């Protein structure tokens, strides 16, 4: 797909991107920065219109945003004028007050924010705000979560904790997760399958299945092999040196 660029020269961002995701699968998309990973996710989410081609999710053409596919944004889309519980219940206005309260309580607890129901986002840390956003998506009963570098703005330790919690929540909820990141380690820690994208115009270069039990041991040979394989696919080794022959 392309976008109108400067001087009406269209910029080709994505080309011939085709992949399949099974229901309940956790798929990470990695690629060099600026390659179009976020663009791809936005097209799938219905926030951007493709110029050529056809985007189908669950057999139907994507024509716009859909409550069945909730986005979790890197820049945090939690509404600052609402409390934690009002945010988590945001997508539930069609439900009865009782069911709404029930779901809000359940998901606030699941993401570990019990006791903060009446707090405002400005009173929370960055990691806690991302937890609110994840709870909001889960409470709305989306079938798929589209996560665009959701932990990118968090510090290292918070990021590790958030990954572990996300895996726990995903195992409990059986949602399909499409997770975009530039962090190869993050992808290998989280995903069933990692899609590796090339530079622009981006296409999917390879698929790496991560067939390792969870919680994952970050020192196990299987983990390291998968990580190094992806580094290699992206033209680098794990120590940051460029590999000549790829």
């Amino acid at each position, binding site marked *: 797909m392309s976008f109108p660029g400067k001087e009406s020269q269209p910029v080709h961002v994505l080309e011939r991107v085709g992949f399949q995701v099974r229901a309940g699968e956790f798929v990470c998309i990695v690629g060099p920065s600026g390659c179009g990973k976020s663009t791809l996710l936005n097209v799938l*989410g219905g*926030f951007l219109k493709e110029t050529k081609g056809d985007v189908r999710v669950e057999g139907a053409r994507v024509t*716009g*945003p*859909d*409550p069945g*596919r*909730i*986005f979790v*944004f890197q*820049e*945090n*889309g939690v*509404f*600052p*004028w*609402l409390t934690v519980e009002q945010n988590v219940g*945001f*997508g539930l*206005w069609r439900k009865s007050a009782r069911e709404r309260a029930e779901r809000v309580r359940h998901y606030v607890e699941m993401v570990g924010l019990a006791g903060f129901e009446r707090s*405002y*986002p*400005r009173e929370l840390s960055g990691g806690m705000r991302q937890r609110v956003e994840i709870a909001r998506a889960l409470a*709305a009963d989306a079938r798929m979560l589209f996560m665009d570098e959701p932990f990118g703005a968090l510090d290292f330790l918070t990021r590790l904790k958030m990954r572990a919690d996300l895996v726990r929540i995903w195992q409990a909820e059986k949602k399909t997760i499409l997770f975009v990141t530039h962090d190869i380690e993050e992808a290998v820690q989280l995903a069933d399958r990692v899609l590796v994208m090339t530079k622009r115009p981006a296409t999917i270069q390879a698929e790496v299945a991560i067939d390792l039990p969870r919680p994952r041991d970050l020192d196990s040979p299987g983990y390291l092999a998968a990580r190094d394989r992806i580094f290699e696919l992206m033209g680098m080794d794990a120590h940051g040196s460029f590999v000549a022959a790829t």
Partner: protein
Amino acid sequence: MTAIATSRPVGRTTLALALPLLTAAVLIAGWHAAVVASGSDLFPKPYEVVNGIVELAERGLLVKYVVASLFRVTWGFSLAVLVGVPLGLVLGWFRPAYLALNPLIQVLRPISPIAWIPVAILWFGIEDTAPIFLIFLASVFPITVSAMAAVQNMQQVYLRAAKNFGLTGLPLFARVILPAALPQILTGIRIALGVAWLVVVAAEMIAVQSGLGYLINDARNAGKRYDLVVAGMVLIGLVGLVLDLLVRRLERFDSVRWGYGQR
């Protein structure tokens, strides 16, 4: 360590009270000295202004004039909020409405409300309607423009999240666009109230027979009572201060506090 830690906030509040009082004392002393030195028998000394305020209170004019001015501001300003906020939201959201009306607004906005006084008298006579119209005109533009800019500069992520949850039309406006714009709208409202209070005084000098603006003009015309002129000025300043403090309190509500930077 503990002594310093506990005494510091106390020291600060004392300072925050003492310094403005000191400034006021120096200014009032300087004022008194300047009037004495100049030998003017028209310009009042500070205590004569205080006596003037007391005299106004005794004649029942103090409350009457302050209420008259506040009455006009309340009407003109409330109308401006009722028109300006929805108009600004619509202009900020619908591009064609913005293209059609924004040039007109930008031409009308720099015309001083004072310039409208003759027109207001022609249209509304010397009733309360004329100053109310002028106050409305003066405050509707800052409110409209701030609401418009608030919607245009809104963080896109809120809009995208809202659309993701299937919000469209009026619920989208009520649940996301308005609350996202509210902090900036409130700032516009605060500016507008300040302008409204400036304009009521000017309007009352010409169009009506009551209010603090009328008091100033009347005191000068009827016997050069400059003590009452300055008394009127002091009252205008004090009421303006109270109005601003009241609007500032609105900015502390949880639904808008996020919009004013980190604490």
